[in-house]
């Protein structure tokens, strides 16, 4: 075995091996075109090595000429693939230059087969034997130079210019190491190969054909570059793994579960914590049906709606609080937040987010609501106490009328004959008065019943009329007219009638106290509803009292703040809580002329219908 055979064969097989590896990588990852181009260049180099070997061992000019001819096929593959590789790998280089290089090289390949024996020589007339690595090898002796050779040479020089230009672009972009290594090595080895070829052909320089050695140089440097790239990817993967562990640790410490949902494949992934929250088994495949199965039946529609909305709108964010019902475990409240990720075309491809157990917060919210409800009830009962005299009056009216009617009926019955028309009228009146008394009692019962706030669509006028009925007697006794204006075109509101009555009663009674306390000569309370478009209704309670001292404006809504000798100081604070629970605001201001105005807002019905 000769050294020449050993070196060239090993070089070829090394190139083939590198090429195969990269081709396999490309096979698994089809968009990694750089790997395919590198693989083709490596295969071209391996082929060049074999044709070189054939030249070195050629026994006649005819053999030598045939080897040169085939070597151009291998060169073509190498050069075209290399140019493509530079373009893809450096993401730089002029496209027209790239196509010119490929075109000229292809033209030279045609010339290789159509003009003379090969593109370098029209005819090889003799070969020389020279010593190389301790043995005698063949090299060009004599031949007729083919003018088409210029084209092949030109393509090589243009390739050089293309690579230099691409490297400069990459260098300017900041990727200096890559530009230096890829551009530098290609220029160095191509200059070597081109120079050698030129010297042999034009200068009759006695040197064995070793183009493949230069090409292999390029391939090995590129392989080094690609390997270090792979190394970096491994490093990134390791760092990613570490950071994933950190995130996992942090999320476990914070009690946050993580999840992703692959929209295309309709399957999900959940971290261990999220699996625990949802009651999923460790290896369980998370499908859409399985996920919906974990959601409390009452919340399923709401969850579906939120997910659909996040995908169909530009918002992309999703946030929903719902109940999960793990198999065989108690129901828990969770908060899911996430974001939809889209591809370049804007199609949603992935949802990613976190899951948080909020059962404890929900429990305390419910407890808070219960306590607020109790306070509201207490406040309502105490207000009833203030209204007691007036309400007794309200009840006495129909009861007194019933008594008088019954007595009149007794007297009419003594007449002979009894006036039946009169008796019928009496019975009808008794019935009507009974109804009136019942309504008074119903209004009271509604106010005294302990209940939570349950908003539903409601005409505001009805609430205002009830308040007017409850305060009518008190207003008459104190000689303070209460004017009610339900407003024109005020839409239905979302509210709880009893609780809104409580707020209005509280404001009206306060207004009466203010007018009475200051012995104001002007005595008038106006309750007005107003709708100025949008999704809210304004309600105003104005009085002609002395107004609120500016220093107290910020304090009156504080719990236990009172200016009345007998007041508990919870009325306004409870009222504000009730209005805020309705999604509105309650505030006070002094009027320009006389008295104060309390205003609150309520959402209209539309808002909830959305």
């Amino acid at each position, binding site marked *: 075995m000769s050294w020449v055979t050993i070196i060239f064969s090993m070089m070829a097989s090394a190139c083939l091996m590198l090429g195969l590896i990269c081709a396999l990588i490309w096979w698994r990852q089809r968009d990694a075109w750089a790997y395919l181009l590198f693989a083709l260049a490596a295969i071209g180099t391996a082929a060049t090595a074999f044709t070189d070997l054939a030249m070195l061992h050629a026994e006649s000019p005819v053999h030598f000429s045939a080897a040169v001819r085939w070597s151009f096929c291998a060169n073509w593959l190498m050069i075209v693939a290399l140019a493509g590789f530079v373009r893809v790998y450096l993401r730089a280089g002029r496209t027209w230059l790239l196509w010119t290089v490929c075109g000229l090289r292809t033209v030279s390949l045609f010339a290789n087969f159509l003009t003379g024996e090969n593109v370098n020589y029209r005819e090889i007339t003799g070969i020389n034997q020279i010593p190389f690595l301790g043995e005698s090898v063949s090299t060009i002796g004599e031949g007729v130079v083919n003018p088409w050779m210029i084209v092949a040479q030109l393509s090589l020089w243009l390739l050089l210019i293309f690579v230099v230009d691409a490297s400069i672009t990459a260098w300017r972009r900041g990727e200096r190491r890559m530009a230096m290594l890829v551009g530098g090595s290609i220029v160095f080895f191509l200059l070597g190969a081109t120079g050698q070829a030129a010297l042999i052909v034009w200068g009759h320089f006695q040197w064995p054909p070793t183009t493949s050695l230069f090409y292999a140089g390029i391939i090995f440097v590129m392989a080094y570059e690609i390997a270090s790239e792979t190394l970096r990817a491994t490093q990134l993967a390791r760092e990613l793994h570490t950071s994933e562990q950190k995130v996992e640790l942090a999320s476990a410490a914070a009690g946050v579960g993580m999840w992703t949902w692959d929209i295309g494949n309709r399957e999900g992934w959940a971290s261990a914590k999220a699996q625990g929250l949802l009651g999923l088994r460790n290896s369980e495949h998370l499908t859409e049906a399985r996920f919906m199965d974990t959601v409390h039946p009452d919340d399923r529609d709401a969850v579906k709606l939120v997910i659909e909305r996040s995908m169909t709108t530009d918002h992309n964010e999703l946030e929903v609080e719902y109940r999960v019902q793990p198999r065989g475990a108690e129901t828990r409240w969770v908060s899911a937040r996430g974001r939809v990720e889209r591809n370049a075309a804007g199609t949603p491809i992935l949802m990613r987010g976190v899951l948080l157990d909020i059962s404890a917060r929900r429990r305390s919210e419910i407890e808070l609501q219960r306590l607020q409800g109790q306070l509201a009830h207490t406040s309502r009962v105490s207000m009833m106490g203030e209204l007691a005299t007036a309400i007794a009056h309200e009840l*006495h009216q129909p*009861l007194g*009328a019933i*008594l008088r*009617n019954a007595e009149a009926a007794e007297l009419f019955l003594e*007449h002979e004959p009894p006036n039946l028309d*009169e008796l019928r009228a009496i019975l009808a009146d008794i019935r009507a*008065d009974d109804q009136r008394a019942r309504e008074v009692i119903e209004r009271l019962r509604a106010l005294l019943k302990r209940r939570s706030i349950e908003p539903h669509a409601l005409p505001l006028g009805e609430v205002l009329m009830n308040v007017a009925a409850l305060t009518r*007697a008190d207003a008459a006794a104190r*000689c303070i007219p209460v004017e009610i204006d339900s407003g024109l075109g005020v839409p239905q509101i979302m509210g709880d009638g009893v609780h809104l009555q409580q707020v209005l009663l509280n404001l009206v009674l306060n207004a009466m106290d203010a007018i009475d306390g200051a012995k104001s000569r002007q005595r008038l309370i106006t309750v007005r509803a107003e709708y100025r478009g949008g999704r809210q209704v304004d309600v105003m309670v104005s009085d002609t009292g002395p107004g609120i001292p500016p220093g107290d404006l910020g304090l009156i809504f504080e719990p236990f703040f009172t200016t009345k000798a007998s007041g508990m100081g919870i009325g306004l604070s409870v009222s504000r809580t009730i209005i805020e629970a309705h999604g509105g605001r309650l505030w006070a201001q002094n009027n320009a002329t006389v008295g104060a105005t309390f205003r609150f807002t309520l959402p209209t019905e539309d808002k909830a219908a959305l």
Partner: protein
Amino acid sequence: MSEPRPVISIVDDDVSFLAALSRLLRAAGHTVQAFSSAQQFLAQMTDAPGCVIVDLRMEGLSGLDLQAAIAEQAHACPVIFLSAAADIATTVHAMRHGAEDFLTKDAAKEDLLEAIERALARDALQRTQRFRQQQLRDRFAALTAREYEVLQHVVRGQLNKQIAADLGITERTVKLHRTALTTKLRVRSVAELTRLVQEAHIPEHFSSTLPKGQ
């Protein structure tokens, strides 16, 4: 003296109670007029005999306001207050200002009817007294200024001689005036004259209100 039948006016802004009470009183044999506000009552008020039943709490003019307005009239009629629920202070105020009675709306029928009877009786009495006083005042109004001066001296118990000296006239002229005034007032003795003056509540300065005669 032939008075028309007494009329019972009811003033209450609660129309349902107003109708029921009117019906009861009519059934009990009374003549009834119903008013749903104090203003309405005042606009239609006459000096016919009767009494008025007033609700204490009403929108607009209250029961107490109405009581004050009635008291200003020359022919004030008795006022009975009815109330759904009343406090002591209001009751005392009403009674002090001459309310005939103060009843709750669910008071026993008998109490109510008795109160009405009492009020009507008082109204009749007050009317008789007012009628008699008016008659007396008419008699006194027939006196001349000089006769009235003489009358005042007589009532003080002065003799004719003293009166003549005080007024700067002769004793005989005094006698003539005395005869004229006893005839006009239809009295026979000084004692009867004194009683008549007291009964008619003739004020000291009464003379200044009389037309100047002779």
